[in-house]
């Protein structure tokens, strides 16, 4: 029945070799975790997550700077996290002794939020800084952790505004 099948066997052999070569090559080239969750490298998730953090988060700040927290919670800036004004401080949190954060410049920091702009919500406190202070630094009168001037006269243990 199968008298002249040699050429077919030879062809089958070629196909088998090609198949084996493909499987081996694929195993060598495709990363192990590819397809773990979907059509992508599963290890990529852990790689993205491994990035070091730059902002420590307010919980870390409040662990040490309890005096500032006590002052801040009495005033209008109670809801602000430290790194809003002080910038990313994860390195300072890791090594508080040697990494000292620079003091923010109130003339720049305050104006970012409080400079008047017609697109800001009407209820948000805004000033035209040129008219308001005439070029004086904001912390000449306002204490940034407790900005309302009447607030500062009261003792720190007083009730909320």
């Amino acid at each position, binding site marked *: 029945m199968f008298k002249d099948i040699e050429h077919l066997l030879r062809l089958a052999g070629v196909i088998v070799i090609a198949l084996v070569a493909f499987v081996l090559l694929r195993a060598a080239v495709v990363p192990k975790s590819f397809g773990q969750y979907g*059509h*992508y490298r599963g290890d990529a998730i852990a790689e993205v997550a491994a*990035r070091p953090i730059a902002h420590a988060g307010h919980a870390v700040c409040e662990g040490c700077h309890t005096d500032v927290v006590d002052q801040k919670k009495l005033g209008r800036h109670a809801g602000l996290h430290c790194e*809003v004004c002080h910038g990313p401080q994860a390195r300072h949190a890791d090594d508080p002794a040697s990494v000292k954060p620079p003091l923010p410049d109130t003339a720049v920091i305050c104006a*970012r939020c409080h400079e008047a702009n017609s697109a800001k919500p009407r209820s948000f406190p805004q000033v035209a800084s040129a008219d308001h202070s005439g070029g004086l630094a904001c912390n000449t009168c306002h204490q940034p952790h407790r900005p309302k001037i009447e607030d500062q006269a009261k003792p720190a243990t007083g009730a909320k505004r």
Partner: protein
Amino acid sequence: MDITRRRLLLLLPAAAVAWEFVRAGTPEIAPNYKTSEHWWGMLIDITECIGCGSCVRACAQENDVPEGYFRTWIERYHVTDYAIERPQVESPNGGKDGFPLDQEFSGKNFFVPKLCNHCADSPCTQVCPVGATFVSPDGVVLVDKNYCLGCRYCVQACPYGCRFINPKTNTADKCTLCYHRITKGLTTACAEVCPTGARQLADLKNPKDPIHEYLRTHSVQILKPHMATGAKVFYNGMDGSVR
């Protein structure tokens, strides 16, 4: 063996348990963090945004975003009474340095912070020819920069313009929703530094997250809902002219 109805009904719960196990995944990203227990999104309250640019600066510092490129940015909308459909939109340096003072406009002005919408059915991941971008099991659209070719298909596909080619790596880059932070129990850098609380990280799979109450009690919108991207950045108080 032949499967009787009784045998099938016995097998189904076992299969469901096995599938749940498969979905839970194995790799430890951080201790006590399970990708199957989260579904991340973000809530943005436009009525609270003051356009200070803190989020843009914090994002750039947290993620080493090159100067002139943005993973998040703020737009200032100016809607005049006579051209409601065609608002003027500007975003000088992404709002990083705040917004310059302008003359008092007659119409409506407001800020709209933008970032990747972390779409559940994202167009950008569907076009990637090599599987270098994907929706993670916890709902964050990520880029595998070791696998990306830099072909820019995804940059074109994103309807929100949230992707760019990083000039240092020549690969696609985008907001990761601070994946390195949220997997450690922190909030995103932009939400951490938002002075008015206009940005809130939301975990849609956590039944205790205040997002559920918020979505029920506010008329919250998403950007380009007609594109059915399953966007997970929710905007409160958004003007109809925002695109």
